[in-house]
């Protein structure tokens, strides 16, 4: 394995302290790298009866194949395990500098098995791998811990990722944080890490990465850097991060949902950023630097981008961005997923609004929409399992069962994982959420039927609506070969749109290239560029077709893991609360319902989706025929097909 890959998978058993390595080579051809190899390792290594906090659960880190090279945006690491949120597949990605350092240290993936008998951290310094005592660090937050680890190792350049009190206390929404504000935050990977008594991982690598055709590889990277510099969207994101795009998106989403809260008009992310920005922060090899770093007296320091700005304002009817920043810093410090905090608070506020809970249920603090008292300090309470926090720490479905009184009907949860309040119930979102192994996946957000739905509510009449989506239909024809995919009123082409997004994110997740460099937000790095770089880097020819096939194998593996956990087609669903939110102030049976979905339409789209992947329509599971055709006979064997 001379080129592009580090060549080794590191295996660490925290129960008996054994450390070993195996070659990456047998995995690379079929699964490329990163999330692809992780999925195979997890599928092969975890039994159906293993529960998320059992020592036998595997916590797997996978570095994308292009990471460590100057390919723009190739920085990402995938983290995977059986999840305490879904009870099945768990997965979350993070950027920053860990990935490159791991490659330089000589590892493509880390598989962590077992459970240490006391708090430990993993130190990886090239070939020297040690399980070290972390008793003095246990209890410290994610800002303090990396400094303590670097001090002890006497290496200020070590890259450290760690859990905070939330992970230590097995809070299901716990995250894993890096020193640059990157978080593997969804599906409870931090809790799995805590269940193994693993506080942190520190990495220092001094080896290089071999590249088969270095001069051509560098030229390819330079071409992409040039293309990025010329790109209008790049220049915007580089100056104002994602604040302007996200500002517009939140307004558009709430306009479609039917926004009766006027407070949103005063939320201006760009203004907040311009007033308080310390500097831009980016990841390894990334010219975009989309993170906004702040150091605000009395509120806290750190870096953020995108979702949290809206999750902790719009979704909670809180117009004060400083409240967002304080709550966000709490989440970072305690190692708690900020989106899940938002989802939790929004649910509690809805319950309070409808009299299902009162202040006595929430430690004397009324969960009024937009209330700073309700928002601030909740992250700490959940992370330390204090008061109402203890009820919420095991996840919203468990909390709903305890609260009762109709609270379960108001859950916005898919496969156990909470969805954002601003998720729009258009057809592609319904399908994408229903079939995703992790519930809502922000990477799969088809644009065309969403924009079609927006045009629908803005249009004066049928004729002007039709003409307003003409060029979106042209685009749908180019992208998925189905014009009607852009018409929000029909199920036609919706599965194809979802598959297209899934394919894009799968290629990114296997190669470690960040989605923010791709047409996902209008930047030019595409699958062709990635295939070219993989070819020049590895010395073998890799085509876009190869990447698509590998992406399909990844989907089969995720689905197969779920199958072994007992999931079937029946679990591919969204709750009633998902569909009922579209423009509640307008007549329910009116034309608005056309741009949303009903149960029959969802089932039709699921049929289309399963068909495109070669899955059985009855069970929703991959067939032996499909698995063999796609080079996964061993997976078919393990499934007992």
């Amino acid at each position: 394995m001379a080129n592009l890959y580090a060549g080794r998978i590191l295996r660490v058993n925290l129960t008996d302290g054994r450390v070993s390595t195996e070659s990456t080579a047998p995995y690379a051809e079929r699964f490329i790298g990163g999330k692809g190899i992780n999925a195979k390792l997890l599928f092969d290594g975890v039994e159906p009866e293993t529960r998320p906090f059992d020592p036998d659960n595997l916590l797997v880190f996978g570095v994308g194949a292009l990471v460590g090279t100057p390919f723009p945006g190739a920085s990402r690491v995938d983290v995977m395990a059986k999840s305490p949120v879904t009870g099945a597949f768990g997965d979350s990605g993070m950027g920053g500098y860990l990935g490159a350092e791991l490659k330089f240290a000589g590892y493509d993936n880390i598989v962590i098995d077992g459970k240490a008998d006391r708090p430990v951290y993993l130190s990886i310094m090239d070939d020297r791998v040690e399980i070290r005592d972390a008793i003095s660090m246990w209890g410290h937050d994610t800002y303090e811990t990396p400094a303590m680890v670097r001090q002890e190792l006497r290496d200020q350049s070590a890259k450290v990722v760690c859990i905070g009190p939330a992970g230590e206390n097995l809070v299901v929404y716990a995250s894993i944080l890096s020193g640059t504000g990157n978080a593997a935050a969804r599906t409870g990977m931090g809790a799995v890490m805590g269940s193994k008594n693993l506080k942190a991982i520190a990495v220092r690598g001094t080896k290089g990465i071999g590249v088969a055709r270095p001069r051509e590889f560098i030229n390819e990277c330079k071409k992409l850097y040039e293309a990025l510099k010329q790109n209008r969207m790049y220049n915007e994101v580089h100056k104002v991060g994602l604040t302007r795009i996200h500002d517009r998106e939140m307004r558009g989403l709430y306009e479609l949902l039917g926004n009766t809260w006027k407070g949103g008009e005063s939320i201006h992310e760009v203004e907040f950023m311009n007033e308080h920005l310390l500097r831009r922060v980016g990841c390894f090899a990334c010219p975009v630097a989309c993170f906004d770093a702040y150091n605000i007296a009395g509120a806290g320091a750190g870096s953020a981008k995108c979702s949290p700005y809206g999750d902790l304002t719009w979704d909670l009817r809180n117009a004060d961005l400083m409240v967002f920043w304080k709550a966000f810093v709490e989440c970072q410090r305690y190692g708690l997923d900020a989106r899940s905090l938002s989802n939790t608070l929004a649910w509690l506020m809805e319950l309070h609004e409808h009299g299902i809970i009162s202040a006595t249920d929430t430690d004397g603090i009324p969960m009024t929409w937009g209330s700073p008292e309700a928002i601030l300090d909740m992250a700490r309470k959940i992370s330390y399992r204090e008061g109402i926090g203890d009820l919420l720490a095991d996840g919203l479905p468990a909390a709903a069962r305890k609260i009762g009184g109709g609270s379960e009907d108001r859950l916005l949860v898919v496969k156990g994982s909470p969805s954002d309040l601003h998720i729009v119930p258009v057809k592609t979102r319904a399908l994408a959420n229903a079939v995703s192994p992790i519930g809502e996946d922000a990477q799969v957000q088809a644009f065309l039927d969403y924009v079609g739905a927006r045009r629908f509510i803005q249009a004066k009449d049928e004729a002007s609506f039709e003409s307003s989506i003409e060029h979106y239909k042209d685009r749908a024809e180019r992208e998925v070969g189905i014009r009607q995919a852009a018409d929000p009123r029909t199920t036609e082409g919706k599965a194809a749109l979802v598959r297209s997004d899934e394919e894009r994110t799968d290629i990114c997740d296997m190669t470690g290239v960040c989605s923010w460099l791709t047409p996902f937000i209008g930047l030019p790095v595409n699958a062709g560029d990635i295939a070219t770089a993989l070819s020049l880097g590895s010395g073998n020819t890799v085509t876009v077709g190869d990447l698509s096939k590998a992406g399909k194998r990844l989907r089969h593996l995720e689905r197969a893991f779920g199958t072994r956990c007992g999931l079937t087609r029946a679990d591919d669903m969204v709750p009633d609360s998902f569909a009922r939110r579209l423009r509640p102030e307008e007549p329910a049976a009116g034309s608005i319902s056309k741009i949303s979905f009903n149960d029959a339409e969802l089932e039709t789209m699921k049929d289309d989706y399963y068909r495109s992947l070669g899955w059985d329509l009855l069970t929703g599971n991959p067939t032996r025929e499909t698995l063999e055709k796609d080079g996964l006979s061993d997976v078919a064997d393990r499934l007992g097909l």
Partner: protein
Amino acid sequence: GEGLVTCLPLVCQQCTEPACVKACPTEALSRNGGGILALEESMCSGCGDCVEACPAGCIFMDEKRTLPISCDLCGGEPQCVELCHSGCLSKAGNGLDVWQGVDSMVSLLDDLSLWDCLPGKGGR
């Protein structure tokens, strides 16, 4: 501070009176006709005195070849400046007879408390 990370590119300042050249016992390091740092590999003994001498750690040892990685400004068009996307690097002179740019690097390292991070200066 906590929650924030600092990065600094350790770029050679092309001093008019370089400490590395002064420290080199074999005269392998010199300033060429154009005033740019130059390394004559055949004369380098791999002693590492240049790395010790630079006040701001802007010259490194290539452990594999036992030669310093010295900056030759890429023959005139420094690639680091071209690729930098935050605009913090530029080809500059301050018009002084003696450019000891390394002094500004030292102040930055002081201000940002980064001494512990320098390879070849006790940090790792």
